[in-house]
């Protein structure tokens, strides 16, 4: 019993407020659930609320949906699942490695090297495209490789200018989340189209969308995992180092198993983001690798107001995340997010 616990009338007032918010939270979800079991006539006839009492439930919408009468539903569901799972696994893994490196190792580089990357990438692209007359795709590849190589080589020399360290790299990663995704999505679409002209199909392909999602999820993975690794006791790793265990074995054999709860929670948060993501999927897919949000949004415009079908489709997109919410809330209680927001 803490001193902050509410007493008397205030306690009931707070309960009332919470109940109102609970009703607001649940009513729309309840509504979509019952609508998916209504017949077309029951939907058009005005609002009804209780199955078996003021309308007869029917399975028409669901059987139509699951039997494939409503277009490419299974393909889309699988595309969403495959892309969502592989992108979240890859992002969690790659991000965890980077987060671990940023917590346990020292990184130093000069601001000038970073500037070299930007200037060479920018200038090289313009040079290749407009002076040397290469195609856009070729100039992109050349300038990227040249910029990266020069930036890495230049970091080996003692350059003038301010020195940057781990915190700056973390800030740089996390700041990627601040960009409006439209900037990246549109440019990525153009870049992928150029690559397509060179023979690498990236628009509407598994690789293209998965890589976009990995890059899009990395900032949040690094943010969450970094705090998790910082909370791990360093003594275990130090003991292993005394025994001359190589760093990669310390990471895979000791650190990853110890941080399993963090990895699972991060994976689930990433999966939720990727599963619901709309903008990249809208730009980068058109048929084969279309994901659920695009299909669900399309139900709206193509078929007018067939609410029973729309509800069933929306529920297919929602239910996996509902299950996740249940699992996540158990992890949340263990205080996982406490570290992340400090």
């Amino acid at each position, binding site marked *: 019993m*803490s*001193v902050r*616990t*509410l007493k008397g009338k205030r*306690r009931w007032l*707070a*309960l009332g*407020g919470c109940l109102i*918010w*609970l009703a607001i*939270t*649940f*009513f*729309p979800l309840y*509504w*979509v659930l019952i609508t998916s079991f209504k017949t077309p006539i029951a939907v058009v*006839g*005005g*609002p009804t609320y209780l199955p078996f009492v003021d309308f007869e439930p029917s399975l028409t919408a669901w059987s139509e949906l699951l039997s494939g009468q409503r277009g490419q539903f299974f393909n889309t569901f699988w595309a969403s699942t495959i892309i969502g799972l592989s992108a979240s696994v890859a992002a969690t893994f790659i*991000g965890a*490695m*980077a987060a671990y490196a940023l*917590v*346990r*190792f*020292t*990184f130093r580089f000069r601001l000038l090297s970073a500037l070299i990357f930007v200037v060479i*990438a920018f200038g090289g*692209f313009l040079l290749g495209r407009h002076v040397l007359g290469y195609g856009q795709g070729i100039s*992109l590849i050349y300038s990227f490789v040249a910029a990266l190589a020069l930036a890495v080589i230049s970091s080996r020399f003692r350059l003038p200018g301010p020195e940057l360290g781990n915190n700056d790299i973390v800030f740089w990663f996390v700041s*990627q989340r*601040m960009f*409006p995704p*439209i*900037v*990246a999505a*549109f*440019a*990525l*679409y153009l*870049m992928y189209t150029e690559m397509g002209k060179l023979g690498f199909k990236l628009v509407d392909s598994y690789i293209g969308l998965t*890589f976009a999602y990995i890059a899009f999820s*990395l900032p949040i993975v*690094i943010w969450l995992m970094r705090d998790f690794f910082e909370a791990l006791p360093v003594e275990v790793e130090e003991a292993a180092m005394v025994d001359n265990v*190589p*760093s990669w074995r310390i990471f895979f054999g000791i650190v990853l198993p110890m941080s399993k709860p963090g990895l699972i929670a991060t994976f689930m948060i990433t999966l939720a983001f990727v*599963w*619901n993501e*709309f*903008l990249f999927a809208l730009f980068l897919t058109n048929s084969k690798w279309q994901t659920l*949000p695009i299909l669900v*949004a399309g139900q709206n415009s193509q078929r007018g107001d067939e609410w029973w079908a729309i509800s069933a489709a*929306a529920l297919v997109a929602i239910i996996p995340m*509902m299950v996740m*919410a249940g699992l*996540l809330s158990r992890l*949340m209680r263990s205080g996982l997010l*406490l570290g992340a*927001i*400090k």
Partner: protein
Amino acid sequence: MTRNDPIKHFFIWPALLIVLLISIFPLVYSLTTSFMSMRLVPPTPARFVGFGNYIDLLQNPRFWHVAGTTTLIAFISVGLQYVIGLSVALALNSKVPGEGIFRVSFLLPMLVAPVAVALIARQVLNPTMGPLNELMSALGFPNLPFLTQTSWALGSIIAVEVWQWTPFVILMLLAGLQTLPDDVYEAAALENATPWQQFRDITFPMLLPISVAVVFIRLIESYKIIDTVFVMTGGGPGISTETLTLFAYQEGFKKFNLGYTSALSFLFLIVITVIGLVYLAVLKPYLEKHK
């Protein structure tokens, strides 16, 4: 303690490479495109126009209108999210009866795809079959044009944003509330401070750093809104609910006006950065006062 080992490069480069390739490099490409006049349909060769696209945009009243709409939606919805979120978090933190159930169920809206949320909202707000209009009629209001009249449509979009993202505010503030030390409250209770005084002088100031961070994140994210608007109103009626991202999508994918769209996305980036910097600059004195 950090250590130095060449293997660190093996750990960090995969992430670095992917972010450079997929987020930074497109930015470079898009920035060069924004200084050119370039169309896919009808195809016109790229032509350097300097700041031409930017000047066109800044002179286009539609851009200012869209920026205004986005700002309105973002500020009002984040304000409401913060007020509701803080109240619910306070209630949950002070062990309201049934706190465990509330805690799990309040998370739900956050995990529902925004596209699905928008479709559900369209059903609930439907003028003939929607339950909300029936409720309104029962209360004596006329049939309300929730999605077809500008002010109602804006209000509906804001309501949907609040419904979906208040859980995030609750989650973060609740985590913050739980880190506050008990002894300060015990001292306040000894001094017979009223609950309101405790909130005003202890809870709110101590929660300020987290509040600032949460509002900042939500504000930035709200500016990117497209899914809900895309499905609920499609930017209509007219362009009255169009947001910045939706405007960029229309220009880029309906008109294939590449240079213009790139310039638009960079203006958007500048707007977000300026808002972020102003926000942090305004709040800095308060944050330092309460440290």
